[in-house]
């Protein structure tokens, strides 16, 4: 071990400084014990970043360990930059989801843009070429001018970044709910395609191998971004805007091409994004995975500002930078590849045999930790968990006793209102700003149940989708965790895919509150149950905690990003009706389940009741039945019944494909025998799970397959021409409206709201920005 002395000019270590770094007294004691002395300022900075919630998962790791991670086709599970699964033909898919919630709350454009950049790098550093982006977004109500500012900034940030790099944005979901008002959620997912043989891991190996910094120069932006993302938002958050990084998608595109060329060249051992906690985490994690020592000289790191201290260089989160371990003697070849792409590369350190993590400033050692303990010594917490009794009471609400509004005497009024609800309405306003067709693989783009991307050189495609219902998870986190997985699986199945594996992004509040830790624990348990039942292991993901502001925590939102495999392009299936005369079928049983529904939230302003059950055996049976029906060639369209229930699903299947809309005539009397005598509004708008809305020209084939799988199925109507109208008959009541009316409600809702002015954060006095 070297002698490490305080660096002249650095602040002295005081209890206040330690607290400012978000390091607890117990954690500080661990640091002192690990080092056998007081840490230097640089060392304190390093540990505070690596042990931040964002980098260390210290409150979630014990829970995450319970998730299933294995299947024969999983080539890389959690712990790497991204998960990787084999899809046959020697090809593999790398994918991962990550949050950028905190930066987006204070600087929506750059926050969202750099979220896209970071997840792209996580995928191409596995050796995969990114082929698709998805995003899962949550905002407050669009009635609020600041929310409109956040929404438009986030959408533009996602679009400008992905469009410039040239990766299509193909799917995702956007939900609007007051629970996210001060704290939007921005989760970005990237999917990449590779030859299995190109798989590379971020594991430093080979004593004497050079460590090379690649890409953009290091500046002072984003210092302590990881710690910022590990605390609640407050009045002070706006002052932390400088902790938000600034993205440059043009450099990212060069870095993408150069990295893939580097990996192909065979000259490098490992490569990793300098993401959260920048150079610190990338170097420490690569060393830990390889079980080797490293030494880094910060004076060698290319910087864009003068006078940067070791502390600043190590903790900068300047974007579009990578850390590479090359084979010794191949430095010139590595430099040549980067120079071709006009990118900087500089040897800044090497892999050493001595088991230490050492940082020098020239010849002076400014930080040194024993071996991999810097990563492994991080504490793990399992705090108390207890459900908030207020939520128990909300769940106990008897939603059946909520009287109907007078207008509901005409169910068409209710349906049109729901179609206008921004959570249900068309999101084309957003995805129309995303290039969804570049790279010419997009068979089904945004707006479908899942996106489908063809795999060139094969007859296969992949289906990808993100899903989560935060309201269900709020009311019952275990059910919400299950449903997030099950709904993503259903969406993948509707597109013709077999659900394969998931990545997850767990967005929760402050885990030190027992009610939040309870939610986290239960939601992860629910996800695990669903993943095991549906055979979709978790290959990695991200945890974002402290999504709180002075007005409270967000709904617990465990977002699932799922990848499925479509065995033949002929199985690719759309969610919209396409042939007048086709029979419309409802697969699955309907129960009296209005709890937690969009109907209660939109029509009655009520969040309460018991969310729908999620019987995983029924989910599996329904997905298997649908898959068999699709592969038999008997299915013309398949759509998941989710937000807004059966009536909304029917409307969407009629109107979503604007150039070729259809009408429908529905009669539910026969199907009502499998609806447990549910009240009419629960039949129309309840959100019972494990149901699919299908259309077919061979309904007998579909019915026989469903019966074989023990799944209830009923023919409920017929597809009509667009001009022949839309009606749903149920006993003595009829819901009747026109396709044109439904279409304008659904298509025009968000554009018309977004034509109102937006107001940036600085111009309004919002609770989120008031004194904490």
């Amino acid at each position, binding site marked *: 071990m070297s002698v490490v002395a305080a660096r002249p000019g650095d602040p002295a270590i005081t209890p206040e400084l330690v607290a400012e770094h978000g390091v607890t007294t117990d954690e500080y004691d661990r640091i002192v014990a690990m080092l056998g002395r007081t840490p230097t300022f640089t060392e304190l900075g390093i540990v505070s970043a690596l042990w931040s919630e964002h980098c260390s998962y210290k409150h979630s790791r014990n829970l995450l360990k319970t998730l299933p991670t294995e299947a024969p086709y999983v080539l890389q599970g959690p712990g790497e930059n991204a998960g990787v699964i084999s899809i046959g033909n020697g090809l593999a898919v790398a994918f991962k989801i990550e949050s950028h919630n905190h930066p987006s709350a204070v600087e929506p454009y750059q926050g969202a843009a750099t979220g896209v950049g970071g997840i792209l790098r996580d995928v191409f550093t596995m050796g995969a070429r990114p082929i698709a982006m998805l995003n899962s977004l949550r905002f407050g109500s669009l009635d609020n001018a600041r929310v409109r500012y956040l929404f438009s900034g986030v959408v*533009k940030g996602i*679009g*400008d970044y992905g*469009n*410039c*790099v*040239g990766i299509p944005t193909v799917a995702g979901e956007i939900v609007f709910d007051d629970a996210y008002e001060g704290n939007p959620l921005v989760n970005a997912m990237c999917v990449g395609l590779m030859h299995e043989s190109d798989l590379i891991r971020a594991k430093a190996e080979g004593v004497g191998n050079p460590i090379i910094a690649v890409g953009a120069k290091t500046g002072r932006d984003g210092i302590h971004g990881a710690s910022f993302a590990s605390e609640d938002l407050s009045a002070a958050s706006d002052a932390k805007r400088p902790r938000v990084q600034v993205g*440059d*998608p*043009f*450099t990212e*595109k*060069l870095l993408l091409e150069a990295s893939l060329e580097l990996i192909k060249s065979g000259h490098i051992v490992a490569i990793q994004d300098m993401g959260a906690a920048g150079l610190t985490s990338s170097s420490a994690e690569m060393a830990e995975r390889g079980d080797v020592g490293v030494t880094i000289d910060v004076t060698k790191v290319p910087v864009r500002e003068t006078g940067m201290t070791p502390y600043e260089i190590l903790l900068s989160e300047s974007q579009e930078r990578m850390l590479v371990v090359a084979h010794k003697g191949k430095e010139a070849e590595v430099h040549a590849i980067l120079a071709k*792409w*006009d990118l900087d590369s500089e040897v800044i350190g090497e892999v050493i045999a001595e088991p230490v993590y050492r940082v020098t400033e020239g010849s002076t050692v400014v930080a040194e930790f024993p071996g991999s303990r810097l990563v492994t010594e991080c504490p793990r917490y399992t705090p108390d968990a207890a459900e908030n009794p207020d939520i128990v009471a909300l769940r106990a609400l008897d939603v059946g006793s909520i009287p109907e509004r007078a207008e509901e005497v005409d169910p068409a009024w209710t349906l049109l209102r729901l179609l206008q609800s921004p959570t249900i309405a068309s999101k084309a306003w957003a*995805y*129309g*700003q*995303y*290039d*969804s*067709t*570049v*790279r*010419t*693989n*997009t*068979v089904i783009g945004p707006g479908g149940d899942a996106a489908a991307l*063809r795999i*060139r050189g094969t007859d296969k495609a992949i289906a990808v989708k993100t899903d989560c219902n935060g309201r269900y998870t709020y009311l019952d986190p275990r059910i919400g965790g299950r449903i997030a997985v099950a709904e993503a699986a259903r969406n993948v199945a509707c597109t013709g895919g077999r659900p394969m594996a998931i990545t997850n992004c767990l967005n929760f509040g402050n885990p030190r509150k027992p009610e939040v830790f309870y939610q986290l624990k239960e939601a992860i348990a629910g996800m695990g149950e669903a993943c095991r039942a549906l055979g979709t292991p978790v290959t990695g993901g991200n945890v974002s905690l402290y999504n709180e502001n002075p007005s409270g925590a967000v709904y617990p939102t465990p977002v699932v990003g799922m990848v499925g495999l479509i065995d033949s*392009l002929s199985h*690719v299936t759309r969610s919209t009706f396409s042939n007048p005369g086709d029979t419309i079928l409802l697969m699955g049983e309907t129960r009296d389940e209005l709890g937690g529904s969009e109907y209660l939230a939109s029509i009655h302003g009520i969040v309460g009741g018991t969310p729908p059950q999620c019987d995983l055996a029924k989910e599996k049976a329904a997905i298997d039945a649908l898959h068999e029906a699709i592969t038999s060639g008997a299915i013309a369209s398949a759509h998941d019944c989710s937000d807004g229930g059966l009536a909304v699903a029917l409307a969407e299947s009629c109107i979503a494909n604007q*150039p070729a809309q259809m009408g429908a005539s529905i009669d539910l009397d026969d199907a009502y025998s499998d609806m447990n005598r549910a009240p009419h509004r629960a039949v129309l708008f309840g959100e019972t799970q494990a149901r699919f809305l299908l259309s077919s020209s061979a309904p007998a084939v579909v019915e026989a397959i469903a019966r074989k799988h023990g799944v209830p199925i009923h023919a409920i109507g017929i597809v009509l021409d667009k001009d022949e109208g839309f009606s749903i008959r149920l006993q003595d009541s009829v819901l009747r409206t026109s396709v044109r009316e439904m279409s304008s409600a659904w298509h025009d809702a968000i554009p018309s709201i977004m034509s109102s002015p937006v107001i940036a954060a600085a111009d309004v006095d919002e609770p989120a920005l008031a004194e904490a």
Partner: protein
Amino acid sequence: MRFGIVTFPGSNCDYDAFRAVVDTLGEEAVYLWHKDHDLQGSDVVILPGGFSYGDYLRAGAIARFSPIMREVIAHARRGGPVIGICNGFQIACEAGLLPGALLKNASLKFVSAPVRIRVENSQTRFTSDYDRHQILTIPVAHGDGRYTADDSTLKELEHSGQVVFRYVDSGGDATEAGNPNGSSNNIAGIINREGNVVGLMPHPERALDSLLGSDDGLGFFQSILATVAA
């Protein structure tokens, strides 16, 4: 026939153009690196879509100074065919190969959607496979696609049949409703007076397979095969 596809730093539709030539046309394609001075014997040059040099300063403004552009301009002056798609159209305008310029979309938003365009002139070597006034569905994906030129240039373009494609609505008319970006006269694509340089904002290379929504771009490439002698 050999197609040379220029890769500028930030090009991102070069791959799609390459696949279009090789997979769909069954012809030969080569990538032309922006720092090189060699067209590698290309018969046709494609300036592909993307964000060359990040579109910093102005879309296409820096790319026109790339070393390879000297050779592309010389090829065009010799009468060699040049196709500018999206960012390539912007570069062709910046390089003076085509008149006019492309401004930010009127909505100030990026627009990504399949659009309908009408073939205004089917007598060019890029459109001979289409019928006059045939309506095509082709994707657009751009932030700066609003074609503009001074009045006399517009008049001249219209008068001499240099407007090749025009945005139209679902009824086939060149209305505001059918115009995705606010282009003057709903112009989606133009050709130079000599008839060897074409520029268009829609992406025909993304419309070659009905599996992906449209194969209306096939005619564009087939016209070139039929009219350009290798």
